[in-house]
C-alpha cells in the first residue's frame, strides 16, 4: 500500500540535478545502504518473494500440510472460472469497489467543505460554527478497531434485540419487527456498506480538510466576490485543486473495499444470505483454512492481485488522461 503513494512522489523529485557528479564517500554509500538497500531487501523478502511463492503455489494442488507440492498447471484457474460461488464473490467485491469509495468520498468531501468554507457568508471565509468540534467527532469511528465496529453493528442489526429495529418499531414502522437486516439478500450488502462508510468518512474528512486548507484562501475569497455559492465553490474551486488527494483516497478506499474481510467476517461470516455479501478474501480464507486447498486459495489471491493492479492502473490512467486534456484546454 505504501508503495503506491510514495513511488511517484519520490521518483521525480529526489534526484539532485544541480550538484552534478558527487564522490562516493563513505557517508553517501552508507546512506544508500541503510535507506535504500535495507528497505529494498526487506521489500524483496517480505513482499516480492512471498508473492512469487504464492504465484507458484497457485499452480500446485498443495494442501498446506505436506512438505512437497504436486504441480497441476492451470487447473486451479480453470476451476475458478467454472465456480459460480467464486464468480459471485468477485461480483460482490467489484460492487464494493465501486460503491464504497464513491459514497465515502462524496460524503467526506461534503463534510470537509462544510467545516472549511461552508460557514456564514459574511466576513472571512470560514467553516460552520463549531466546525473544529465536528472534525474531531467525525474522526472517532476511525479509531475504533474494525473488528469491534463489526461486532457492535452485528448487534445493532440484530432482528429481535437490535437497536435499529427497536428504534424503528418504536417510531411505528411495524415492518421492522424482527426484520433481519443482515439476513435478507436485498438489505445485507447495503447494511454492511453503511457500516464501512460510517467507519471511513471521518478519516477522509480530515484528509480533505487538510487538502482544502492547502488551497490559497484568496481563491475562495475571489470566488465569493464573483458571486459563487458554496456548492459552486466546492465543485469549481475546491475539487479541481485537490485531484491528487481525491485520487489517492479513491485508491486507498478501493484497495480496502477489495479486502473488506474484517467487516464481513464480523457481520456475515458465512457469506450472508444467498452469498450476497461473500467477498474474495472470505473465499480465500475458507479455501485455505477450512478446506485445506492452499493451491486453490493462492490462485484466488493471484486473481485478486490482478484485479487490484487493474484498478490502480485504471484510476491512474484516467487521472493522466484528464490531466492532459485540462492542460491542452489551458494552452488554448
Amino acid at each position, binding site marked *: 500500500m505504501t508503495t503506491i503513494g510514495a513511488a511517484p512522489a519520490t521518483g521525480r523529485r529526489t534526484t539532485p540535478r544541480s550538484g552534478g557528479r558527487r564522490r562516493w564517500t*563513505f*557517508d553517501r554509500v*552508507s546512506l544508500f545502504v*541503510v535507506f535504500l538497500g*535495507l528497505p529494498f*531487501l*526487506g521489500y524483496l*523478502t*517480505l513482499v516480492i*518473494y*512471498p508473492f512469487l*511463492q504464492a504465484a507458484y*503455489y497457485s499452480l500446485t*494442488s*498443495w*494442501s*498446506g*500440510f*505436506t*512438505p*512437497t*507440492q504436486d504441480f497441476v498447471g492451470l487447473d486451479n484457474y480453470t476451476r475458478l472460472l467454472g465456480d459460480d*460461488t467464486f464468480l459471485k464473490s468477485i461480483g460482490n467485491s467489484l460492487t464494493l469497489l465501486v460503491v464504497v469509495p464513491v459514497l465515502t468520498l462524496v460524503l467526506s468531501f461534503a463534510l470537509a467543505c462544510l467545516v472549511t468554507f461552508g460557514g456564514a457568508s459574511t466576513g472571512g471565509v470560514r467553516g460552520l460554527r463549531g466546525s473544529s468540534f465536528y472534525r474531531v467527532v467525525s474522526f472517532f469511528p476511525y479509531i475504533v478497531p474494525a473488528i469491534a465496529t463489526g461486532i457492535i453493528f*452485528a*448487534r445493532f*442489526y*440484530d*432482528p*429481535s*434485540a437490535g437497536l435499529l429495529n427497536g428504534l424503528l418499531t418504536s417510531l411505528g414502522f411495524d415492518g421492522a419487527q*424482527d*426484520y*433481519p*437486516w*443482515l*439476513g*435478507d*439478500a436485498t438489505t445485507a450488502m447495503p447494511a454492511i456498506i453503511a457500516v464501512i462508510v460510517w467507519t471511513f468518512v471521518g478519516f477522509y474528512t480530515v484528509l480533505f480538510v487538510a487538502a482544502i486548507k492547502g488551497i490559497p484562501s484568496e481563491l475562495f475569497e475571489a470566488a465569493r466576490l464573483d458571486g459563487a455559492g458554496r456548492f459552486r465553490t466546492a465543485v469549481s474551486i475546491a475539487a479541481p485543486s485537490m485531484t491528487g488527494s481525491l485520487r489517492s483516497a479513491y485508491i486507498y478506499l478501493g484497495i480496502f473495499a477489495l479486502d473488506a474481510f474484517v467487516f464481513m467476517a464480523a457481520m*456475515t*461470516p*458465512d*457469506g450472508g*444470505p*444467498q*452469498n450476497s455479501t461473500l467477498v474474495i478474501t472470505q473465499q480465500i480464507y*475458507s479455501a485455505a*483454512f*477450512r*478446506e*485445506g486447498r492452499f493451491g486453490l486459495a493462492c490462485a484466488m489471491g493471484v486473481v485478486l492481485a490482478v484485479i487490484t493492479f487493474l484498478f490502480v492502473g485504471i484510476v491512474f490512467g484516467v487521472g493522466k488522461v484528464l490531466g492532459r486534456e485540462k492542460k491542452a484546454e489551458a494552452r488554448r
Partner: protein
Amino acid sequence: MNRVTENLSESTDETSTRTASPLARRRFLHLAGFGVALPVGLSACAAGGGSSSDEETSDAPAGEVTEDNPFGVADGSAIDAVIFDGGYGTDYVAFAAASMADLHGDAELTVTPSTQISQQMQPRFVGGNPPDLLDNSGANLIAVSTIAAQLEDLQPLVDANNLEGTPIKDTLYPGMLTDGEYDGRLVQLNYVLTVYGLWYSKSLFDANGWTAPTTWDEALALGEQAKAQGKFLFCWGKEAATYYLTLLIDGAIKEGGDEVRIALGNLEADCWSLPAVQAVLTKMGEAVSKGYFRPGGAGTQFTAAQAQWSQAQEAILYPSGSWIENEMKDQTAPDFQMTGAPSPSATSSASMPATALHASAGEPFVVPSDGANKAGGMETLRIMLSKEAATNFAATKLSSTVVKDTVPDDAFGSTALASQIAMLEAADTDSFSHTLVDVYGLNTDMLVVWNSFLSGELDVAGTTSAMQDIVDAVREDDTVTKVTVS
C-alpha cells in the same frame, strides 16, 4: 536473532567514529538489524523447509512390545501432545501423565494447549515434526481430508486391551468409531460422546402437559399449541441454520432406514429427492409456512438465538448436539431441566423405531505418522480410554466419553446428561451417524440454503434442488477423495 543484532551493532561502533552523529546512526542500524533478521526467520515458515521425516521416525527409540505395552513405548521417552483448549480444557489429557509415568519408567507426557490448531500445526506438518498426539478440534481445526494420508491407522489401538484388560472396542458405545474412518482407515478417535436430537425444557413441557414429538405430525401439532401461548416451535441462528439439516437427515434416516443414510453419504444422484427425505422436508416446510419458526433467525447470531430458547423460552424446541447444555450454561433459565429426545421421523410407520438415535462422538484425536514417538501418542489414548480416566472425564466435565458405564445414575445432577444416557440405552444398537457435511466441508455452502429455507424465501422444491446441486458438484469433482459409506 539476538546474535545477528549484536554483531551489527558492534560493527557500527567501529564506523561510528567517522560519522557526524554516531548515536543516532547506531540506534538506527540497531533497529535495521532487527529488520534484516526478521525476514530470514519469517521466510523459514513457508513450505520448502521439508526435512526428511522418514529418518527421524526410524531413529525414534522403540521399547519392547509386550502385553502391557502393546505399542512398544520406550521407557522414559517424551510424548508431545497438542490439545485443543476449548470447553473441556486440557487437564483431562494431562490426567493420563501419572499413569504414563508409572507404566513406562517415567515416560513424560507434555500437554500443550492450543486454540489455533490449524495455524500452529501447519508448519509442523510441513516440516515433518508434528506432535505425537493431536486433539484436532475447535473453530480452527484442520479438515480431516487435508491430512488423512499423514495420520496413523488407529485400528491397533481399539483392538488392544485397555488398562483393565478388556479390548477397547468392546468398552465403547455402539457406532462410536464410524465417524473416525476416512478412506477405509480409522484415522481419528472421537473421544467425547455426542447425542443429537431435539432439546427442551422438561419443566415447561410438564407444566403444559406437552410431550416431546416422535413424528413430524406430532411436532406440527405441538407447534399449534405453542402458538396458542404466543411461543414458537423452533428458533435458529444464522451460523447454525444447518442444525435443522442434521434434524432433517436424522429424521429421513429413521424414516427410510440405512438405504437413505447410504445414499446421502455416498452423494448419490437425486438423493435429496428420496421419498423419506422429501417426507421430512415437506413437514419442515409446513412448519416454516405456518410460522412455527421464530422470524429473523437469518440475521441472528446463533448463541443469541439459542438463548431465545433456553433463557427467554420464546421457542420450545431446539435441535442440537449434546454440547448444548454446556454451551448455554450461563444463559439457561432457572429450573429449565434441559432434556433431550431423539430426532422425529416423518411418520409413525418409519423403518426405525422411535428410540433410534443419532449418536456419534466429538473431540477427534489423531496420531500423525511423522510424530517422533507415535507409540507414545497411541499409548496416551489407551490410558485415556481406561475406566479410571474416562470416569474422571465424566465427573469433571459432566459429559460422557465414548467409554460405556462411566456415568452414575444421578448423572451428577445434570438432566441433560441423564437423558443422553437414557436415550443411548433405549436406542441400544439402533444408533446411527452421518458425516457427509463435515467430511466434504459442505457446511458453509449449505448454511446459505438453510437460512433461506427457514426464512421462507426458498420452498421445498428450491431447497431440494439447491442441496442436490451442492452434492452433485462434490461428486463430480475428481480432486475430492470420496468416503464410501456402507
